[in-house]
């Protein structure tokens, strides 16, 4: 399916290009012939051919656009899906600029057929056929034509190659500007203290694009001068031949129209460049991120000299057991989120982690021997609730049912709506009672407090026994803090809850408090 459509579209594109060119040539020949020959030949046939060519050109043009667009959408969907599937278990792409890049680069890669191949194939085939025609019918013109052919191809190749260099440079400039802008705007709070404050300057990027445009213009002017030169040669030749055959009209006409049927491809080369660059980057995203899930039921988690890999934070020695509430106190920036991610197995750690009194490293080695290499072990029985839980673009129901363990999902045992609404009430999200409501991007935006409570609702609905809550109280008013405290206290009757927070509200019955800050 995927391989047939681009070929048909390509053929249609070729038909489109050739019928356009032939239309021009046949009609000019027709006029010349009519003038030279008078009524002495069958003029109906060429007239019919011209009309047929015109219709063919329009039909193939539309067909090509339709088909290649269809193919573009299909291959884009395919590409994105395989990218997404490949990122299973990855937590790396989360920044807006990264996802945006994958978004447009996948588009660049998918649009190579419609954007570049089809157009260029048409132009190159036209060149080839004209060459064949000259060698077959107009041998006397072969020298000027071959000059044109060689030079035009040289310009064409020069433009592609030098454009590629520019495009690679552009990519570098872009990447460095992106990080520059990000750092600059993250530091906006201290701009007023900066001596000689410089805002980002993207002129290098603009300049790069402009240089490329100027290059294209030179290539086009070169092509035009070249065709003019060859036309002049032809006209001189024509005088020696005597211009009584209408067929000699064809070549000058083709050269005059060179900008249309050949020069236009000059504007398409950036698509090829984007494809090459995008393809490289997308392939590098296909790195082998394979991590295993530890599906065991967890009775206890014991940390020994534990800290996230490469972090400067304290090493921890703690045991977490069921029906406990632990509070990890620390100010923002003390590495609480990274610590939680390390416990849940989302990032690497230093030290050791004991699951049900057995070191995960033993387990990990065992697995390494028996199956493929793996980086991290994601603990299936641990739930990490982010500081700002992500709200999926989807219905509220989807956002809650996500919490159902995937093993149960395939059956008809999706959590029923009454249960969902009950949980929403428990966390104080009564105002969201329409489970069909679209939330997240493209729908109702949840406030910071609502988002936090949605995360809590998911935690209640999940069957996971270890729940890591990252800053659950931040940004909530007192009334909602009380509600959340109640929920957490009741969660601890059956599970283990670990809270990272710099706020410790009253009424929180924690068993253990760990201070992460060194001060």
């Amino acid at each position, binding site marked *: 399916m995927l391989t047939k459509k681009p070929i048909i579209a390509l053929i249609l594109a070729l038909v489109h290009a050739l019928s356009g060119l032939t239309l021009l040539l046949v009609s000019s020949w027709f006029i010349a012939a*009519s003038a030279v020959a008078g009524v002495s030949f069958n003029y109906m046939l060429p007239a019919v051919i011209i009309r047929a060519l015109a219709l063919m050109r329009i039909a193939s043009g539309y067909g090509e656009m339709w088909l290649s667009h269809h193919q573009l959408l299909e291959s884009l969907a395919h590409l994105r899906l395989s990218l997404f599937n490949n990122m299973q*278990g990855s937590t790396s792409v989360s920044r807006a600029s990264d996802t945006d890049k994958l978004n447009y680069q996948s588009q660049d890669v998918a649009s190579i057929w419609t954007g570049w191949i089809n157009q260029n194939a048409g132009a190159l085939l036209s060149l080839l056929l004209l060459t064949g025609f000259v060698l077959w019918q107009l041998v006397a013109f072969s020298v000027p034509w071959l000059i044109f052919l060689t030079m035009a191809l040289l310009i064409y190749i020069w433009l592609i190659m030098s454009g590629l260099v520019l495009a690679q440079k552009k990519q570098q400039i872009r990447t460095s500007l992106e990080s520059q802008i990000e750092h600059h705007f993250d530091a906006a709070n201290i701009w007023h203290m900066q001596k000689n404050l410089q805002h980002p300057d993207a002129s290098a990027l603009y300049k790069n694009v402009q240089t490329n445009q100027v290059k294209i213009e030179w290539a086009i002017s070169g092509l035009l001068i070249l065709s003019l030169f060859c036309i002049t040669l032809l006209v001189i030749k024509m005088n020696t031949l005597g211009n009584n055959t209408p067929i000699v009209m064809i070549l000058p006409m083709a050269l005059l129209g060179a900008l249309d049927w050949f020069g236009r491809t000059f504007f398409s080369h950036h698509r090829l460049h984007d494809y090459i660059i995008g393809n490289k980057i997308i392939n590098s995203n296909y790195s082998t991120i394979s991590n295993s899930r530890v599906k065991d039921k967890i009775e206890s988690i014991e940390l020994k000299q534990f800290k996230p890999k490469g972090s400067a934070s304290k090493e921890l020695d703690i045991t977490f057991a069921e029906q406990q509430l632990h509070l990890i106190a620390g100010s923002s920036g003390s590495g609480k989120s990274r610590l939680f991610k390390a416990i849940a197995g989302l990032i690497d750690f230093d030290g050791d982690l004991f699951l049900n009194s057995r070191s995960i490293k033993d387990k990990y080695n065992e697995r390494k021997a028996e199956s493929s290499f793996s980086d991290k072990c994601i603990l299936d029985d641990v739930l990490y609730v982010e500081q700002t839980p992500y709200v999926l673009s989807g219905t509220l129901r989807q956002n809650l049912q996500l919490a159902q363990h995937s093993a149960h999902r395939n059956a008809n045992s999706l959590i029923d709506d009454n249960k969902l609404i009950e949980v929403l009430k428990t966390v104080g999200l009564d105002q969201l009672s329409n489970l069909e409501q679209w939330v997240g991007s493209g729908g109702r935006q949840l406030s910071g407090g609502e988002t936090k409570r949605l995360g809590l609702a998911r935690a209640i609905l999940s069957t996971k026994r270890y729940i890591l809550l990252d800053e659950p109280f931040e940004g909530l008013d007192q009334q909602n803090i009380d509600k959340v405290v109640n929920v957490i206290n009741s969660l601890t009757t059956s599970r283990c809850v670990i809270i990272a927070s710099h706020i410790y509200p009253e009424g929180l019955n924690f068993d253990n408090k760990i201070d992460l800050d060194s001060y």
Partner: protein
Amino acid sequence: MHDLIVGHAGVNNESSLAFVLSSLVWIVLRHVSENQLSKLNAVIELDLQQQINVNLDAQQHALARRYSSFFWQQVYLKHIPSIAQYVSQYTSQKYISVLFPIFVISIIFPINWFVALILLITLPIVPIFMILVGHGAANLHRKHFISLERLGGLFVDRLKALTLLTTFDQHEVESKRLAKASDLVNRQTMRVVSLAFLSSTVLDFFATISMALVAVYIGFSLLGELSIGPDITFHNGLYLLLVTPLLFAELKTLGRLYHQKSEAEAAVEAMLPVIKSNPKFSLINASDSKRWGAKPMTFNDTRWHSFAISVPSIKAESLDLNGQDSVLLTGRSGAGKSVLLDALMGLRQATHQLPGTVVLISQKPTILPSSVRENLSMGQDIPDSQLWLMLEQVQLSKKIKSLPLGIDTLMGENPILSGGEAQRLNLARALLQPSDVILLDEPTAHLTEQQHDTLALLIHQLTQNKTRIWASHKPLPSSWFNRRWLIENGEIFQGDTLC
């Protein structure tokens, strides 16, 4: 400039020299005009960038923090170029594609009025059909707009949700959903696109029809089968045949540039709030002469009557501030404490702003990825002894000394300082700046209670000799302050009685 394209058509004039010359003139003019357009493009881009940077200078973090850094990336890398392209290419092409056909017909008319007539009749049909088709496609798109928007954005959305999907082991479920969504989006898009593509096909169709009409007419006239209109010679015929396609050439170019319009519209919509020119309210401490080493300025018994901020509206009947005052600013979160501080700095439109050099310490410590030294000196030349003295004062010197490269250690992307330490570094940076007034915007908001206590005390000790306005949510000893401001329902109340 573009009109010279007609020189192109002078192919069979008696002298081939004239042809060569006029062609050369056309080539040169075309080249120059295209280069001018790309120069214009660059000028517009730099001008837009300049406008944004001027606004950023005037409003600083009050403007910058309203948007994510991703938004700003898009502004510089995407929106500015697409607006510039639209202005330089599309708008000029719009005029050309209207004027050019008129020009071409006026050239054809004296040569053969009948051909001109044919073209005059067929020409208006083109835009009419294009508009009809365009409206149809737009309606269809509008009908599916919400689902196209939602489902079309699903790929990016689920990429952002990777951590969530991993923790819940929902990757496969979402993958299926993604496949289904893109299938649906593609089907709907194809429906819209099938219609939208008709637009250029219609143009092609009518262009071909009129070409065919002209060609057949010329052909048969030359054969002597037809005798409507003026006589036609071979040269005339060829000339007309070459000129006719030019009638539609510029319209076709416009069609190719059409996508620029929607891109620019999206860009303008996104950028309008940050590019709207603001009435000049200059930042007093922007001038470098007031920087390091300048004498502190004193102000006494300042009383502002009917102080007001325009957006969001915050008012005060009067506000008093004397040199060396210590003001406690309170109010619920979201009441506008940060807005007031911004306005006092002159970063928001307000009736008054603080005189002299103002320094702000904000909630979230800002650490640049560069070295500790650069983080402290902010581009000024401050002697090491002074830096260390300050680090000693904020109790960071031990920590900094323990870093591998000491004061020259790069902070990098994952800071090596804890939240409390980072805020101490921020404090040191602010205190190294010569300032007349120091503004504190909940500097301990993200710290634990214990840390809040120690850091607040440190801040108090180090700033008690300065004029300071301290916004705080958390309790602070009342003996530290001689004035209180309370923001409530858009109004600032002052005095001791409130606390």
